Every structure is written in structure tokens, then in C-alpha cells.
């Protein structure tokens, strides 16, 4: 299949190879959570809720001098094109969410000094999946953590890139993602310019991999500047509401 038109150089959905889908972030979408955010990348839509910092529920999990970050990832039944018949408790989902949780512990090395309040729960709910759910989840979680007022060293953003029809492509959608080509997902601590997540699931020559990874990093930076805008906007609104 031709994923990049040889005539115009455009992709299926009309984007250029290095163009991202439309992104949208919204803070404070849930009233009951300590921090919450909605993040959309094209048709992919994720809600993140953060509860905490609170007391560690299971004392055996407590680690001194470090926050306990837990994460649960769930996909709504209607999030994919074909309705998932299996209700919750799918093994795949459970292992995926454990996998996700461990990533976040690395990603958000929360270095705040709350005395006894050390547990942070991040719950991610995928409302629509159209490729790049992992990236969207990380971006949503970043916004939600900021909304919860948890001090972070830096903001983490994520973006994916792939390689199809001998062209590096930024931010794959579902069709491109399931084409079987490599899919490189990068998580980046933007200010420090350090990578916290790097994943690839197919083979790729080393020199091309560098290009693809570089493209994903550029994507992360673009998302970071958008997230900063959203946070700034939110802070301004809060300031306005306080009436200084």
C-alpha cells in the first residue's frame, strides 16, 4: 500500500511526512480528581486523572525518600473501531498497565518532599484510540500532574514517529501504525533534553533510526511548547479568578 503519495508527497490523511495531527489539551475536566486533563491527538482522545499526593495505602510498597507513583491504564469498550467484547480484566490490558506504571515511575521522578503523602495515582482512560495512545497518555498525564500541583523537575512529553515508504513519518495514526513498519515512541524531558522513554517494535537500519528518532524528538518539543501554552493559559485564568 502507498502510505505516502509518490505524486504529492502527502500522507493518507493529507498531512506532510513531518506534520503532526491536531493536538488539543484541556485542564481540569474532572471535578472530583486532584488533577485532571483531556488530551487529543487527532482522533485519539485520552482522559487522565491524578489522585494524590496522599498517604501510601499499602505500607509494604512504601519507599523512603521517593514517591510511589502508580498508574492504571484502561480502554473504553467503544474506543476502538471494533467493539471489544471482553470486559475489564483482559490479561493484555493488565500487563500493559503494569508496564505503563513502571514507565511513569521512571518518567516522573517526583522529587517533592511531602512528609507522609507519597502516593500518587495516575488513572488513564482512553476514550478513542487512533494510534499513538501511549504518547497521548503520557501527554495527558503530564497536564494532569501539573494540574494537581505536583512539583516536577521538568515536563515530559511524548510523540511517535515511523518509517514507511522510505520516508520518516511523524505521529502515526492507526492505519499507519498497523502497517507493520517500525514505530518509534519517544518520551522526552524537554528542558533537560533527556529521553525517558524509547521504544521500537521493528527492525530499522541504524542511520535511518537516528533520523526517525530525531523526528520524534522534534515532535516532543512541539508538543511541549503547546503544553506550556496550555499551562500558562490555565495559570492566567486561575490568577484572574483569584483577583490579584
Amino acid at each position, binding site marked *: 500500500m502507498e502510505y505516502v503519495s509518490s505524486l504529492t508527497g502527502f500522507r493518507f490523511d493529507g498531512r506532510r511526512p513531518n506534520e503532526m495531527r491536531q493536538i488539543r489539551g484541556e485542564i481540569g475536566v474532572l471535578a*472530583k480528581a486532584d488533577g485532571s486533563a483531556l488530551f487529543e491527538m487527532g*482522533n485519539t482522545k485520552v482522559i487522565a486523572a491524578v489522585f494524590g499526593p496522599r498517604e501510601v495505602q499499602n505500607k509494604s510498597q512504601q519507599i523512603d525518600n521517593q514517591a510511589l507513583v502508580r498508574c492504571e491504564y484502561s480502554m473504553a469498550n467503544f474506543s*476502538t473501531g471494533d467493539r471489544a467484547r471482553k470486559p475489564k480484566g483482559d490479561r493484555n490490558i493488565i500487563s500493559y498497565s503494569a508496564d505503563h506504571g513502571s514507565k511513569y515511575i521512571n518518567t516522573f521522578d517526583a522529587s517533592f518532599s511531602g512528609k507522609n503523602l507519597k502516593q500518587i495515582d495516575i488513572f488513564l482512560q482512553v476514550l478513542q484510540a487512533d494510534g499513538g495512545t501511549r504518547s497521548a497518555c503520557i501527554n495527558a498525564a503530564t497536564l494532569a500532574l501539573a494540574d494537581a500541583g505536583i512539583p516536577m523537575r521538568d515536563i515530559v512529553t511524548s510523540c511517535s514517529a515511523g518509517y514507511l515508504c522510505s520516508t520518516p513519518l511523524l505521529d502515526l495514526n492507526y492505519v499507519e501504525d498497523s502497517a507493520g513498519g517500525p514505530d518509534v515512541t519517544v518520551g522526552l524531558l524537554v528542558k533537560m533534553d533527556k529521553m525517558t522513554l524509547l521504544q521500537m517494535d521493528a527492525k530499522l537500519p541504524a542511520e535511518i533510526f537516528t533520523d526517525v528518532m530525531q523526528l520524534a524528538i522534534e515532535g516532543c518539543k512541539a508538543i511541549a511548547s503547546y503544553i506550556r501554552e496550555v499551562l500558562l493559559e490555565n495559570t492566567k485564568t486561575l490568577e484572574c479568578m483569584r483577583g490579584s
Partner: protein
Amino acid sequence: MVGLSAGEKQFMHGGIAQDLRSDGRQRLQFRPISIQTGVIPQANGSARVTLGTTVVIASIKAELGKPAPLRPDKGKVVIFIDCSPTAGPMFEGRGGEELSSELSVGLQRCLLGGKSGAGAGIDLSSLVLAEGKICWDLYIDGLVISSDGNLLDALAAAIKVALSNTGIPKVSVIVEASAEDQLEVNVSDEEFLQFDTSGVPVIVTLTKVGRHYIADATSEEESQMSSAVSVSVNRHGRVCGLTKRGGAGLDPSVMLDMISVAKHASENLIAVLDSEIAAAEAAEDDGS
């Protein structure tokens, strides 16, 4: 879980007794409802209902299937509710399962009618394309995103709105004489049929707190309830289903009183939903 101090409890009980609740509402007043339709483009129909700070999403998906052998002239409708952990840490892991299945059963009772499919809010016969061979299977998925009490009413409202937003592709069955079981169908991707949702009921839950009952309880108020009665009422004022929760017993006369009050409250709710549906549809048309 909601923890209330003795003072807060007394304040709440006193307020309810004086017909002025903690958030300024009267006993039978609902929180403001807002509705958005078409929130899940991948589904045939969807809606998000926000009731105060309770947020639920309902999505309707239609798939071609085979009618059950015992009821060849009826389509199938499945209701599945899920409580997302974003609504609270208590729904983490399998924590939400009990509440989810309780809500699913409650909605099935109110929307789907008896085992034979008679008296259902959704006309199951209209889902059949070829008797005994092909029908639409309707999957109704509800997702609780934020939970602040009165989930059942919010979910029923979301399902009602989502059904009115649902377009099912028009299907023409190509008569094939040679094959016995296999029928060929032609699913149109241009023409859509709208559902008749006039028979779909709404649910009004009356929660008994102390000596009085209140409509649209918040989670704080629900934590103090002795029992709750969920009555589903359709447009014609007919009671379609009834669920009582909570351990405390109710006097039959109080029960009858509650049913008639719920019936009255449902008229307002249906009117509000109708106007919100019209507004949401207008907004969606503008957007596209």
C-alpha cells in the same frame, strides 16, 4: 468513600428537612444537566451527560448478527456499564466491577423489558432485517468518567440521548435462493435510519435520607441514605421498571407516594432532555 463528620451529617439532615439542601437545591430539584452528542465519532451514536459534577458517556454500536433461535423476530440489545478509575481511586483494578454490574442490571431492567423482549423501551422488532437470519446487535456501552452520585439517572439519560443521536446504516437484503443460511446484505454508507426513541424511558431515583426523600442525590447525600427507589418512566407517564436499593424497609404507602412523585419529576426531566437534545443537535450541525 465519603467521610462526613457528625456536624456535617446533622447539617445535611437539617437542610433536607427544611427543603433547602447543602447546594441550595430543593428536595426534588435536579442539578443542572448539560448534554453533548456525537462525542465518539467511531460509534453509531454517542452522548456525554454532565449532571452537576457527575459525568457519563454512552455510546451505541450496531453490528450485524444473528437473532436468537428462540426469538427469530427480535434483535439483540446488550447494555454494559464500566466505571473508569478516573472517577475515583476506589474503581481501580476490579474495584468498580460490583457497582458496574449493579448499574448494568438496573438499566437492563428499566430499558429492555421482560425476557421475551416485550415492553422494551427499544423496539426490538425494528432491529430485524431478515427474520431468523440477520438482525442488528445493539451494544450500549456506558462509561462513568466522574462520579458524584445519581449515576443511574445520568446513565439512563445518556443512553436516551445517545439513542436519539444514533444513525443505523440502511441495509438491503439481497435475496439469495441458493444458499440456505447465508444471506447477502448491502450495507449503505450513505443512508442512515434514525431510531424511534419516543418509548425510551428516563430514570428518576428518589433517595431516602432521614424522614424525607430527595431527587438527584450527590455522593455525600447518598452516603447517608437508608434506601433508594429508581423508577423508570416513559413519555406517556407509564412506569417501565423499578429498582429498590438499600437495606431499610419502606412502607408501601410511602413507596406508592414515591412512584407518583418520580412520575411527576420525570415529566420535567424529559422536557429538559428534549430541549437539550434539540440544542445539542443544532450545535453539532453548526460545527460540521
